[in-house]
């Protein structure tokens, strides 16, 4: 068991804990030694707690932290592992390099909160390499909280390889506060009998810019995947979504589903790409961009809501 205690007297620890709570995290889990957790503020590891079956290796660098997180062979981690990344000051650079391995027959859920509540000139980069071993399972939820200023660049990039029988579920959410500039780039190689589900939900406002690129290559027989994207943009925000699924093997099944709601002067572009080079593979797609559904708005207005309130509820529901 690895354990670096979160020093509750540290000002930085207090700040990041408050920011973690603002992002929707439960701060109690960071102090619970029965749970695995990792707290990184800027380039400092403020706490790390690994329970049985989990190995954390971490190295502070000039502008971030290099992390290796391994779930050992055969371990099914019963409770989620909580990760907190953030920068509390209004400016800074956080460069995270993540090497994640879920060894054969292991299973884990990671819940990450990325919090930048005061960002005016912040860059958050993540470069991740993830390996989901044979029959292993990873469920990864990443929730961002950015505050109201929009002065942030979020640049997550990941390559995920899912080995035979493995499964990978990810849910990326950036709906609280301003997006700023988001360039999301994930690519997945899925081998035989593997499952991949990637969900992204983003709410852009003011002059936010959103670029999402998700690629899945179904290389193995009967590999299956879904890319699901829900974007809402308003004011002068802009978004470009590219969801690419390639079917290369017999029985491979993939689907790309993008729905974007636009309001005001926002501009949205959705490009679902399906490529198949095996006659026994099948990949489908759907994409829709438009205003909020009129019947939904009128239904809520007929229950007494103002039009703006109705739209807000519908958009939040879509992004929930």
């Amino acid at each position, binding site marked *: 068991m690895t354990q670096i205690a979160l020093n509750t007297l540290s000002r930085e620890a207090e700040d990041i804990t408050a920011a973690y709570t603002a992002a929707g995290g439960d701060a109690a889990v960071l102090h619970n030694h029965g749970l695995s957790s990792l707290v990184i503020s800027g380039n400092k590891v403020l706490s790390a707690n690994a329970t049985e079956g989990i190995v954390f290796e971490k190295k502070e660098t000039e502008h971030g932290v290099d992390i290796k997180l391994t779930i050992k062979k055969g371990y099914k981690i019963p409770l989620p592992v909580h990760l907190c990344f953030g920068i509390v000051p209004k400016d800074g650079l956080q460069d995270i390099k993540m090497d994640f391995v879920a060894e054969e027959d292991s299973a884990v859920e990671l819940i990450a909160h990325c919090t930048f509540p005061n960002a005016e000139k912040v860059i958050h980069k993540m470069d991740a390499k993830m390996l989901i071993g044979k029959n292993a399972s990873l469920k990864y939820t990443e929730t961002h909280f950015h505050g109201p200023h929009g002065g942030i660049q979020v640049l997550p990039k990941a390559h995920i390889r899912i080995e035979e029988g493995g499964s990978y579920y990810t849910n990326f959410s950036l709906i609280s506060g301003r997006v700023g500039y988001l360039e999301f780039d994930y690519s997945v190689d899925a081998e035989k009998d593997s499952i991949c589900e990637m969900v992204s939900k983003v709410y852009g406002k003011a002059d936010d810019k959103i670029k999402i690129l998700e690629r899945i290559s179904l290389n193995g027989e009967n590999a299956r995947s879904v890319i699901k994207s*829900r974007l809402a943009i308003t004011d002068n925000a802009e978004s470009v979504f590219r969801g690419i699924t390639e079917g290369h093997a017999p029985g491979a099944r993939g689907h790309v589903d993008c*729905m974007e709601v636009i309001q005001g002067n926002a501009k949205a572009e959705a490009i679902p790409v399906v490529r198949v080079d095996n006659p026994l593979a099948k990949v489908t797609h759907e994409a829709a961009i438009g205003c909020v*559904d*009129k*019947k*939904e708005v*009128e*239904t*809520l*207005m*007929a*229950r*007494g*809501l*103002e*039009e703006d309130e109705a739209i807000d*509820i*519908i958009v*939040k*529901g*879509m*992004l*929930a």
Partner: protein
Amino acid sequence: MRGVNLELGDREIHSIIGANGAGKSTLAYTLMGLQGYEHEEGSIIFNGEDLAALSITERARKGITLAWQEPARFEGLKVRDYLAIGARGNGGITEEEIKEALRKVDLKPEKYINREVGEALSGGERKRIELASIITMKPKLAILDEPDSGIDVVSLKEIVALIQTLKENGSSVLVITHREEIAAASDKASLMCEGMILRSGDPLEISEFFKNRCIPCDNRVSPPKVK
């Protein structure tokens, strides 16, 4: 629509009967004030007030609401939250009241309360949730656009009972229907054809007229003459 004269009493159940395309749903949308269904002539008076200048929201806050024939899908919105929305104007709603509304439409609360309205529910289930949202709102006038469509015959009795409950709770109900069972449970009925109300009166008589005169009528351009 033209020549639509209709008077609905306090706590009255009034059925609007007519063939497809007769203008029944158009009447419902016009009363609710939906976009594209604003009336150009005539007036709609509710409790002595002309509704012409009022938006959908304002009409709803006066106590008018509409249950759509094909309810909207709301991705991510939980049934619990949907049913609570209409009750905001009445000072909110308790968990038990939400459950009770679901029971009244024959849905088990424990199975449905946390599901999403936009989930892959059947047409009948979505229709029942729509009706439950009317119950929690406690409107003065509930306009129900074909509440029986997509619902089996056994459930039709429950729809009739639900309409009676709305009345007992103080609502007037304008119900658009093809079903004799619903018309029979009404206090009054009106027959619509080609955008007109041809006659109003005893629901059984109107229902009989519809069955014997309108259904065989194959020339909808010339509506059947009324004595």
